[in-house]
């Protein structure tokens, strides 16, 4: 079965191709095509997962590109991490396909939407089963395109166009890092197969300085894809896409690809302490940085987007702190509860037709399913005990603690505190209090939307139990189990870490409750007391503006310099060339005066010069 795992991505691809060609005729039936094919992929993924558990890893490969003696290959490899990712991706994608049927039901371009979803799912599934770095890079870019197309789905909106463009270019900047790292690695190792890379790294055949450089370059790729600081700005803007897309791509799967990349290449990173520090610090900083921005945003999707950035930072921090299992574990739980939150947010938007949380409120009574599932998601992400997020977050904090990075540990705690605040700020403002909606009557979403949410809610509660300090570390054992390259140490952490994490979560929730529900504290406390700080945070630390004034204008300046050169130097040279040709021409035509003597004179002088040259050079030219 494992060698036929390549079939899994092909079904969504088939869906993409069919819908591109026949989508127009099929109209609403498109959704069934998409759902059906993704469903098959999901079923196959589950089969692959269990086969892997039973029989161990496996895969298949074939030649793809031959350059003389170099051969690049294409194929599949199924190891625990890949199998897990397959299931996560295909499951979330399947649920989002179903959800979209309800969410997009009145859109005329549903066929296009489903075909793009198919393309993305194909690329993402193929990404996670890549046996070598080149193939990973190829699908890495393709998921970027899927994301780009879906962000720009409402192509007639200027914001969507700008967001799509920005997403593509920002991630491409990261991709170039990955490309350079990959090529450098290739010339060191002579192959891009993961196993050979790991062997070479373990045997120490790559110099450590170079390895650090390579690891950091590859990490830049992950930074771009996962919206880490400083390449994070595209991710909040990407919320211009339809909400199911935000759930699938910009919460659960594609953005997690950066984390997946670091996890896959973990042995390479591990060999370079400097690179590990870079990963951990970037992750930790992003976690708290994005969380602060999330505190003050007013757009429901943007809050969730910054939350995503923050959580991804968390995962990076875990990986950087050698918490391989913790990172992957949090990747999984996050995929479920963040997809859930986005889908619930989509459901809310679907009902009230706005994204501004100040215009929502009191929806708890009106949306009997969306409300509770959103609450479950919020509890999970805040790290309230017994929900999935609690276990994975705890694992991360433990990993940082044991890695000796106490600063990061504290950073993680603060970020967790902020997470709880902004999630419950969101919850209270949307679902509690008085209704501030205007106009349309609010109603619960159709079943095609609620069922996926319920499924995810169940997973958001229970998926944490596969790796707990109490019931056994099944996930960790399995992930690291049969790999010769991955270290595994589970930390039987001091109980106070767990207590601290819970405490922080409850404190955050409590604070939010006081401010936004009880109104016991002034809401505009921050605004009035620290106006400068508030402006700074509300404007996302002016990073966008900074980029605009430095990079964008810089590029423009270089371009205008280029066109200046073109206009006043190159064109002048050209004019000079044409001028010379013209003047030679006019000189020639002036010689054609009709006077035989002139002709004779020219001919003779030419002859004299020739003869002179022949004699001068001694008869040889």
């Amino acid at each position: 079965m494992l060698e036929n795992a390549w079939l899994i991505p092909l079904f969504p691809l088939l869906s993409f191709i069919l819908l591109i060609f026949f989508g127009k005729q099929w109209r609403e039936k498109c959704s069934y095509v998409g759902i059906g094919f993704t469903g098959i992929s999901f079923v196959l993924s589950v089969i692959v997962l269990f086969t892997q558990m039973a029989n161990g890893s496996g895969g298949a490969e074939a030649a793809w590109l031959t350059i003389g003696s170099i051969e690049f290959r294409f194929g599949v490899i199924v190891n625990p991490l890949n199998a897990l990712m397959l299931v996560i991706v295909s499951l979330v994608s399947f649920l989002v396909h179903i959800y979209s049927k309800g969410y997009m039901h009145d859109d005329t371009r549903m066929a296009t939407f489903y075909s793009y979803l198919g393309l993305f799912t194909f690329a993402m599934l193929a990404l996670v089963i890549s046996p070598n770095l080149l193939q990973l890079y190829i699908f890495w870019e393709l998921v970027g395109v899927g994301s780009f197309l879906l962000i720009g789905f409402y192509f007639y909106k200027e914001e969507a166009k700008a967001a799509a463009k920005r997403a593509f270019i920002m991630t491409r900047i990261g991709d170039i890092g990955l490309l350079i790292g990959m090529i450098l690695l290739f010339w060191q190792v002579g192959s891009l197969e993961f196993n050979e890379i790991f062997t070479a790294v373990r045997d120490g055949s790559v110099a450590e300085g170079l390895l650090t450089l390579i690891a950091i370059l590859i990490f830049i790729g992950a930074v771009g894809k996962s919206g880490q600081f400083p390449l994070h700005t595209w991710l909040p803007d990407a919320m211009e896409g339809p909400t199911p897309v935000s759930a699938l791509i910009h919460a659960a799967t594609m953005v997690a690809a950066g984390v997946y990349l670091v996890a896959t290449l973990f042995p390479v990173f591990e060999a370079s302490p400097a690179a590990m520090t870079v990963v951990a610090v970037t992750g930790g900083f992003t976690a708290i940085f994005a969380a602060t921005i999330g505190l003050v945003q007013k757009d429901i999707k943007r809050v969730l987007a910054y939350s995503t950035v923050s959580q991804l930072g968390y995962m990076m921090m875990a990986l950087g702190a050698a918490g391989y299992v913790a990172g992957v574990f949090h990747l999984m739980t996050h995929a479920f509860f963040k997809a859930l939150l986005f889908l619930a947010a989509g459901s809310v938007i679907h009902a009230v037709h706005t994204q501004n949380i100040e215009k929502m409120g009191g929806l708890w009574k009106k949306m009997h399913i969306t409300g509770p599932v959103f609450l479950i998601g919020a509890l999970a992400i805040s790290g309230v005990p017994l929900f999935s997020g609690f276990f994975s977050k705890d694992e991360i904090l433990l990993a940082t603690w044991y890695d000796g990075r106490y600063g990061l540990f504290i950073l993680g705690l603060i970020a967790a505190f902020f997470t709880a605040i902004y999630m419950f700020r969101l919850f209270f403002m949307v679902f509690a209090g008085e209704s501030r909606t205007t106009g349309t009557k609010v109603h619960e979403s159709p079943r095609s939307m609620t069922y996926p949410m319920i499924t995810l809610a169940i997973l958001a509660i229970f998926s944490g139990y596969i790796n707990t300090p109490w019931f056994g570390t099944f996930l960790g054992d399995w992930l690291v189990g049969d790999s010769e390259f991955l270290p595994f140490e589970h930390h039987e952490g001091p109980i106070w870490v767990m207590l601290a994490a819970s405490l922080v979560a409850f404190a955050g929730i409590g604070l939010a409750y006081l401010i936004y529900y009880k109104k016991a504290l002034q809401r505009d406390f921050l605004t009035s007391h620290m106006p400068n700080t508030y402006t700074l945070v509300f404007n996302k630390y002016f990073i966008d503006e900074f980029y605009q004034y430095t990079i964008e204008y810089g590029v423009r300046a270089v371009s205008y310099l280029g066109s200046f050169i073109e206009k006043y130097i190159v064109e002048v040279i050209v004019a000079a060339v044409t001028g010379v040709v013209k003047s030679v021409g006019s000189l020639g035509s002036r010689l054609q005066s009709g006077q035989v003597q002139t002709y004779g004179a020219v001919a003779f002088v030419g002859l004299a010069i020739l003869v002179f040259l022949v004699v001068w050079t001694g008869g040889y030219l």
Partner: protein
Amino acid sequence: MSGELFAFLVLALLAILGGILMLNLTKVIHMLLSLVLTFLAIAGLYVMLSAEFVAIAQVLIYSGAVTIIMIFGIMLTRHNDEQKTRGNLTRNIIVGAGIVLFFFTMYFSINQVSFGDQATSLHVENTKQIGVELYSKYVIPFELMSVVLLVALVGAIILAKRDDEEEAEHK
């Protein structure tokens, strides 16, 4: 200095003098006459080169016939013409420079050459030798040359005549 060398120098200087006079005189008829001097000097050189027959032909044809034809030409056209201007000065300078270049190039080459001994038997019955060669070895070129002369004669007559008739028709 041997007498031969002296004769050569005198004749050479005369020839060059004629040429320079030709370039610098202003009246056309004077230019022409100065060239007669050159032609005669060249005839003298031919004698020194054991080519008596050629020398005589030179005197007859160049100093006589060609010069007379040219004088006729001048008389039939505007014989009082003087050289109006020095003409196009830049062109003259360019041509002059080219000629100087050419001169020195050739001078350089001439200085490089050296040949074997001189022939001795040329002056013995010079005219007979030429006649024998012309009528045996070079008989075909010789006959062709007569055709050329004939064609030139007829052509000259026709060229000079045709316009008369055309002018008559015009009138």
